[in-house]
């Protein structure tokens, strides 16, 4: 890993990676001994399940079963599954949130994930009428309205379409963190921030299909409609539709999962998840928005003065520390890796700062892995923990100069009843025993 940061010639010579990322990160290793009153100097790190000094480790000295006997054959699971020891890493539901589990949401277990791609089976799910099961041979996509030639496509047509692309984007529900507007409610980043996933989509640009139909110059908006029992609809400005929207049939290299819109969904980069219509069946071009239920009654943002914002499409820059977090408490003193995600619907994450004292002082975190536009970005802060109480926060910046605001800054402008678009800075209180809680600070 450190070697890859060197020019190939130096790598070949076996040059010492003196300026490698790993040594830089060691240099940036945050010593917290000075933070917080009465903080003890960190020790060498408490060893986990280590035998007493001088006693041989029973995990080493006897030959374990998995070394002595044959394991499962190669096709034990024709579609692979996670280790049985990871069985808690699953989507979860908060049943009191909604009246029906068919019009509801499950949450991505962000606390247990790393890097930037969400595994397909763990992507949060939001349905409004349950999961449609569509036979691929019976799938049809229609384009009509203000077009020269109304068209019908089959799934095969879409898969044969020239110009197929692969793009990584986050999909964040507009209501992600919506339960937190009034204060700290749910104890875990899975619940406070887990209405998000980040995938590589395979599909064709929506522009390709609209161009084939020939959009009338009067066309200004596109209505996207799903084939599920909610017959979900949203109005999308034509400019966005022609810019970067995709008609996608693949996620992370395989077919869309049924719960993600199999066989075809709309991808609307950077914009609120509701617009990413699943089981996409119809695209209609018109000269004005349709004022559908999901853009009037829902996905409009009520402000304190009684007025409401509508068409708040973009998801602003946001971040959260996924570890430590309430579901991922600190277990050891000494070296620890703080890990988190940042994203922005306005562009690329350019920087993430982390505070361990509730926002008084900040350190710029290390971004690792790809930082792509409108895609999840992973950040780390390697730190040495002496066991003192921490108030952990992260603050994302994107390449438009937008800086993630505090919840207080958002509430000062919007009040507490806008439900959607809560991108305020999250605080985790880490207690001296490592237990971590969702809190607000002031």
């Amino acid at each position, binding site marked *: 890993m450190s070697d890859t940061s060197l020019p190939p010639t130096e790598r070949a010579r076996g040059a010492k990676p003196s300026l490698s990322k790993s040594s830089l990160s060691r240099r940036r290793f945050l010593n917290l001994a000075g933070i917080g009153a009465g903080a003890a100097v960190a020790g060498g790190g408490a060893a986990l*399940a280590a035998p007493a000094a001088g006693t041989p480790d029973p995990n080493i000295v006897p030959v374990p079963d998995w070394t002595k006997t044959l394991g499962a054959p190669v096709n034990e699971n024709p579609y692979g599954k996670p280790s049985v020891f990871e069985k808690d890493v699953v989507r*979860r539901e*908060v*049943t009191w949130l*909604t*009246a029906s589990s*068919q019009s509801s949401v499950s949450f991505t277990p962000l606390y247990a994930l790393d890097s930037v791609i969400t595994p397909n089976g763990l992507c949060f799910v939001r349905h*409004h*009428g349950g999961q449609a099961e569509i036979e691929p041979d019976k799938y049809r996509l229609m384009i*009509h309205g203000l077009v020269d030639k*109304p*068209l*019908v*496509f089959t799934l095969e*047509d879409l898969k*044969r*379409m*020239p110009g197929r692309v692969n793009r990584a984007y986050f999909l964040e529900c507009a209501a992600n963190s919506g339960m937190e507007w009034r204060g*700290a*409610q*749910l104890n*875990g980043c899975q619940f406070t921030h887990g209405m998000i996933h980040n995938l590589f989509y395979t599909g064709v640009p929506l522009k390709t299909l609209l161009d*084939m139909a020939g959009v009338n110059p009067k066309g200004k908006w596109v209505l996207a409609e799903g084939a599920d*029992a*909610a*017959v979900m609809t949203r109005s999308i400005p034509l400019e966005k539709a022609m810019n970067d929207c995709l008609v996608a049939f693949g996620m992370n290299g395989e077919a869309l999962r049924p719960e993600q819109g199999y066989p075809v969904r709309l991808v609307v980069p950077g914009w609120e998840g509701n617009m990413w219509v699943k089981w996409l069946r119809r695209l*209609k071009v018109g000269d*004005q928005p349709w*004022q559908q*239920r999901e853009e*009037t*009654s829902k996905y*409009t943002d*009520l402000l304190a003065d009684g*007025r*409401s*914002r509508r068409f*708040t499409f*973009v998801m602003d820059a946001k971040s959260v520390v996924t570890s430590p977090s*309430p*579901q991922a*408490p600190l*277990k050891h003193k000494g070296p620890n890796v703080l890990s988190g995600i940042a994203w922005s619907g306005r562009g690329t994450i350019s920087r993430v700062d982390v505070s361990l*004292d*509730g*926002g*008084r002082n900040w350190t710029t975190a290390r971004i690792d892995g790809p930082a792509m536009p409108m895609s999840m970005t992973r950040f780390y802060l390697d730190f040495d923990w002496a*066991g003192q109480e921490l108030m952990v926060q992260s603050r994302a910046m994107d390449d438009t*100069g*937008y*800086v993630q605001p505090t919840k207080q*800054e958002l509430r000062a402008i919007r009040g507490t*009843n806008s439900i959607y678009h809560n991108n305020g800075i999250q605080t985790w209180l880490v207690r001296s025993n*490592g*237990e971590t809680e*969702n*809190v*607000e*600070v*002031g």
Partner: protein
Amino acid sequence: MWKSAEKILAAAVLAGALAATGIAVADPQPAAKAAATKGEKDKARQAVNVLTPAGASAPAGKTPIALGRPALPEEIAAWNIDVRADGEGLPPGKGSVKEGEELFLQNCATCHGEFGEGAGRWPVLAGGRGTLKSERPEKTIGSFWPYASTVYDYVHRAMPFGSNMTLSADQTYAIVAYLLNLNDLVPENYVLSKENFSKVDLPNEANFFDDDRETSEKAFWKTNPCMKECSGEVHVTARAQILNVTPDGDPPKGDLE
């Protein structure tokens, strides 16, 4: 979409490719057979090579994408169910408050209550006027929704929950009339129709405005956010564990080893 010559060439190429793999294919159309000379096949392959995703806007001389087919009027009619705020898309028909009340009691009241007051956690459809600035706003059709067209469209496409797309146009007009009456927007003897629909205005329409974050939240764009000693002493002001509403089955709490 298809230009007939291209269709023939594509068919010929396909037939040739399948024949080459030894797969038996049905006899292509005589015209296609005639066109399937070596030179034509080469030309067809070149045609495949110049396909571009630019589609209809491809420069003259480029082959348009021969995928998809024209949508038939009957097909468009079958799916073209949306109703716009200006009434575009409303089907012919009408329904009275009285008819709507009966339909509502049969199809809707189990979840939404006899008077749209909502049962359990199911949505409240009526009331709530004047609550939008309050601590706990009640956002109903009467108090919050900007357009009656949305009620028609949504009831027709997505209600009753679990048996949507079962209401006729007249039934939908009637239920919308009843919902408007429950919200004190039309009298008890009202008959709603395609013709008078545009006369119905909802009270909260003027209170919606387009996303203005780039101006109203301009302060969030900063060049140098504070890094050191940005505030006084920080205290915890709210805790999730006091509420204790997080689902069971969470991993155990932290435990230092």
